[in-house]
C-alpha cells in the first residue's frame, strides 16, 4: 500500500466517521440521513432477506443489456466513422452537445414506440452510453501514431485488419475510458427512467422509499448503486492502468 493510498483510506474513513458522529449526536437528523453503520446494517439485512432482489436484479440486468450493446455498437460506429473526416466534422457539434441534453425527454417517445416494459429503459441506457464510447474511441483512433498505420500498410494489411489488429489495440486505453463512462451512463439511463416511470427496479424503489420517508430502504439502495459503479470502474481502471503502462513502456 502506498502512502497516498493510506491517506485516501484515512480520509474516507474519517469522512464516514464524521458523518457517523454527526448522525449519532443528532446534528444530522434521522429523517435526513441514517448513520453510516445503520446503512450497512440495513444493506446486509436487505440482501439477507432478499426483499429487494427482484429490483436489484432487474436494474443490473437492464444496465448490462444496455451497456454491452453500447460498447459493441459504439466501437464499431467509431471505426466506421473514423476515416470520414467530413462526416465527423458535421457530427462533432452533436457529440459536443449530446451530454448537455436531457435525453430523458425522449423516454415517453420510447414508451410509445416500445411499450411500457423494460425495452424503453434499456434503450435509454444504451442511448446515453453509446455516445461516450464513440467519442472516446474516435479520440483514441486519432492518437494512433502514424508510423503504426504505415507499418500495417507495409505489412499489406487490409483496412479491417488494420482497424482491429493495429488501430484499436493502440487506442485501447482511450476506448476503456469510454467503456468506464458507459458503465455510469447506462446506469444513469436505467435508474433515471425508473425514477420517472416504471413498475420496478432500484430507481423505482428509491423514489418510492423517498416518498414514504423510508430511509432504511433508500440509503442502502443508493449505497449499493454507488458500490457497484465504483467497483466496476475500479476494475476497469486497473485494466486501463496496465494498458497505459504497456503503452508508455515503463
Amino acid at each position, binding site marked *: 500500500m*502506498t*502512502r*497516498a493510498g493510506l*491517506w*485516501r483510506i484515512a*480520509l*474516507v474513513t474519517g469522512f464516514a466517521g464524521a458523518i457517523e458522529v454527526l448522525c449519532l449526536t443528532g446534528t444530522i437528523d434521522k*429523517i*435526513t*440521513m441514517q448513520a453510516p453503520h445503520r446503512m450497512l446494517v440495513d444493506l446486509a439485512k436487505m440482501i439477507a432477506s432478499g426483499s429487494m432482489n427482484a429490483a436489484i436484479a432487474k436494474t443490473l440486468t437492464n444496465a448490462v443489456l444496455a451497456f454491452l450493446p453500447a460498447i459493441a455498437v459504439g466501437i464499431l460506429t467509431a471505426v466506421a466513422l473514423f476515416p470520414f473526416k467530413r462526416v465527423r*466534422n*458535421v*457530427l*462533432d*457539434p*452533436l457529440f*459536443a*452537445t449530446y*451530454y*448537455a*441534453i*436531457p435525453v*430523458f*425527454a*425522449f*423516454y*415517453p*417517445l420510447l414508451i*410509445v*414506440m416500445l411499450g411500457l416494459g423494460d425495452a424503453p429503459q434499456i434503450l435509454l441506457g444504451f442511448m446515453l452510453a453509446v455516445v461516450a464510447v464513440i467519442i472516446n474511441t474516435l479520440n483514441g483512433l486519432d492518437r494512433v501514431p502514424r508510423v503504426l498505420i504505415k507499418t500495417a500498410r507495409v505489412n499489406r494489411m487490409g483496412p479491417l485488419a488494420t482497424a482491429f489488429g493495429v488501430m484499436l489495440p493502440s487506442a485501447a486505453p482511450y476506448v476503456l475510458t469510454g467503456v*468506464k*463512462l458507459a*458503465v*455510469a*451512463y447506462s*446506469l*444513469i439511463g436505467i*435508474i*433515471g427512467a425508473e*425514477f*420517472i*416511470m416504471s413498475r420496478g427496479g432500484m*430507481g423505482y424503489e*428509491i*423514489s418510492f422509499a*423517498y416518498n414514504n420517508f423510508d430511509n432504511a430502504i*433508500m440509503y442502502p439502495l*443508493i449505497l449499493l*448503486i*454507488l458500490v457497484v*459503479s*465504483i467497483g466496476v*470502474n*475500479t476494475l476497469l*481502471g486497473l485494466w486501463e492502468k496496465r494498458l497505459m503502462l504497456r503503452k508508455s513502456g515503463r
Partner: protein
Amino acid sequence: MKAQTRNAAINTVLLLVLVTAAWQLLYWSFGDAALRSPAQTLAYTVKLFSGEMIWPHLRETMAAFAVALLLAAVIGLSIGFTLGYNRFAADVFEPMLVALYSIPKITLYPILLLMFGLGMPAKVAFGAIHGIIPIALFTMNAVRNVRVVLIKTGLVLNLGRGEMVRSILFPAALPEIFTGLRVGFSLTLIGTLLGEMFASQRGLGYLLMNAIGLHNIDLLMALTTILIVFAATASIVLLHYDRKIHARL
C-alpha cells in the same frame, strides 16, 4: 480562416438538415401518439414564447444554471490548480475524483433533496456537482502537463509563485482548462435540468417532468427543442473557441 468559418457554417446547416429530416421520418413512422413534426413543434414553441407561462420557468432555470456554473468553475478550478501543483495531494485525491466522476449522480438526488429541500439550492447543488469534477480533473491534468522547460524558463527569471501561475502556468494550461470548462458547461446544464426534473417545482426541467407525467407531447417536444437549441448553440460556440485556442499550439 475565412474558409474555415464558412465550412463550419456549412457543417452546422448540414447537421440541422440531417436532424430535422430524421425527426420528420420518425414522425411519419410513429405519428401523433408519440411525437410532433418539426413544423408543429416550431409553431407550438412560438406560441409558448408569445405566452406568459414559460418566462418565469425560463428565468428560474437560467438563474440556477448561471449560479451552478459559477460555483462549478470556481470550485473546479481551485481543486484543479491545487492538485495540479501538489503531486502528493493529487495522488491522494485523483482516484477519489475519478470514482466520483464515475458514479451515476442521478441516484443522489433524494439525498440532496433531504439536505437542501425542494427548490433553488438543491438544483444549484445538483448542477454544480455535475460540473465540478470534470473541470477539476481537466485543470489538474492541464497544470500537471505544462512542459517543464516553460517552468524552468520562469525559474531562471526568478518569477515568484503568483507570477509563475499568472504568466506561465495559467496561459500554458489554458487550452486544456478551456476544454474542461466546455465539458463542465454541458454537464452543469444537464445536472441543473435533472435537479429541476426531480427536485424542484419550477424551471424548464420541472415543466419537462410535468409534460412527461401528463403526456403533454406538444410541450414536451417544444421544451426539448428549446433546450437542445440552447445547448447546441453554446456548444458550437465553445467548441469553435476551443479549437482556436488549441490551434496555436
